[in-house]
Structures are given as C-alpha cells and as structure tokens.
C-alpha cells in the first residue's frame, strides 16, 4: 500500500509535468529565450506549483509526523556555500544547453522519445561522476 501510494504520487507529478510543458524542451528553452521566441508559460508552472506547495506545506508540517513514516525528512543544511552556488550554476548551464531538467526528463521517458533516454543516461553519468568526486577520499579535490 505504501509503495502503491508512492507510485500514485509519482503519477500525479508525472501528469502535472506533462500538462505543464516542463517535459518539452522546446517550451522550456523558449521560456529562457527572452531575446528570442519567448514563451512565458513556465512562470505559470512555477507559480502554480509554489502556491499549492506553500499552502499545503503549512498545513502538513504542523502535524507531529507524516501519515506513513516516522518523521519529516527536511534538509537541515544552512550554509549557502560554494558547492551550492557552483552546483546550481552548473545545473543552469546544463539545463540551458539541453532543455531538460531531472524532474522534466524522468516523466518524459514515458513518451518513449529516444532523445529523453539519451539525456537521462547522460544525467545519470553526471550524477555518478559528481558522487565519485564527492566521496571522502576525493574530498581534497572537491574542497570548497
């Protein structure tokens, strides 16, 4: 039941992404192309998502625990450090080159379009490379 709930939640995300246009690189890249074929739609995606999540979180996080887990796993890191900023800058560069972000690409796999699989394979490779760079014995190289 727990796993089926997680699956359903994934479906809601996947349907939302699909309807919103986040899985469509042409639309995504056009949002960021203010000097060219600008399509403001993505602002509405973010807006809609933020309003719902902001309101929903205020109610949900008042509870002592989640319904099906022992505790809320909220990130506790506070530092706005070089790794956060540098990583985010890289993410933006990659997103601007490929037109896909992780949340947009994963649902897009369900359309069967070959290029999505190519992107996701590269995405996974990038994650593994970064993880390897971040493992303790390599931390000297990735030190911020």
């Amino acid at each position, binding site marked *: 039941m*727990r*796993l089926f709930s*997680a699956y359903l*939640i*994934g479906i809601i*995300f*996947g*349907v*939302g992404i699909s*309807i*919103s*246009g986040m*899985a469509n*690189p042409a639309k995504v*890249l*056009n949002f*960021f*192309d203010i000097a*060219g074929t600008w399509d403001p*739609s993505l*602002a*509405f*995606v973010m807006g*809609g998502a933020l*309003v*719902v*999540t902001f309101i*929903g*979180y205020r109610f949900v996080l008042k509870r002592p625990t*989640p319904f099906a*887990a*022992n505790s*809320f796993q909220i990130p506790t890191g*506070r530092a706005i450090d070089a790794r956060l900023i*540098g990583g*985010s*800058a890289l*993410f*933006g*560069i*990659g997103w*601007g*080159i490929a037109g896909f972000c*992780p*949340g*947009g690409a*994963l*649902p*897009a*796999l*369900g359309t069967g*379009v070959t*290029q999505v699989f190519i*992107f996701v394979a*590269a*995405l996974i490779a990038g*994650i593994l*490379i*970064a*993880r390897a760079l971040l493992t303790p014995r390599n931390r000297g190289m990735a030190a911020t």
Partner: protein
Amino acid sequence: MTAATEFTPLASLMGGGLIGLSAVLLMAAFGRIMGATGILAGVILPRDMQDFAWRAAVVAGMITGPIIIWLATGTTPDVSVPVSTPMLIVGGVIVGIGVTFGSGCTSGHGVCGMARLSPRSIAATLVFMIATFVTVYIVRHLIGA
C-alpha cells in the same frame, strides 16, 4: 531559427498545481521532499532496500504520467527537442554534476525548498535560473546553435 511555442497559461498553471499537489502528498505521507534529483540518486545509488523501494515507485509513477495522458486523450504530451544529440549529452552530464553538487534541482529547490522559504533553496533557484537565461542567450544568440 528556433520555433515558437504556444503560450499556455492555463495548462501550465494546472500542471504546476498538480506538481505542487504531488509535493504536498509526498510530504504528508512520507515526510519527503519531492526532489527529482534526490529521488533519482537514491534509485541509482540505493542506500537500502526500503529507501530504494519508495523512490523507485515514485520514479515509476513519474514515467507513467504521460502514459495516463495518452490513455485519457489519445496523444502523448509534446516532447520537441530543438537541440543536437551532442548537446543533450553534454548538457545532461553537466546537469547531473550540477544538481549533485547543488543538492537539488527545479523540483527540490525551486518548488519544495522555496515553498518552505529555505534561504539555501532561494539562493540555488536564483542562481540556476539566471545561469539558464544566460546560457540560452549565449547558445541561441551569440553562438547561434
């Protein structure tokens, strides 16, 4: 010259609302951030069986999304890729490195983190949004790719 896409305020708003709903439900049920980066990372580098299982279930659901739309409407959502395969690969690797170092992406930082007013997420989102705007400008208008 890149093709224009249709401005779809209503569909985008609705889609965004569903994305938000999934984030709220994941937090309510499992106490987790709906961050595609973390969820994917936990699938390809699993910590333990239980952790892997819920993440894999979420990813499976994400992939099912377009299939649901196809069943309901007869067409799959548009996925128009206006970039070359090398750009997909280079971009993909850079995204993978970036979201791992940055501890999140559009869903994790941009939606969930900002919704709880996390300074880290607000900073991350500002940076990656600006970086994307600049990159697209360079790629489309300076390099002309």
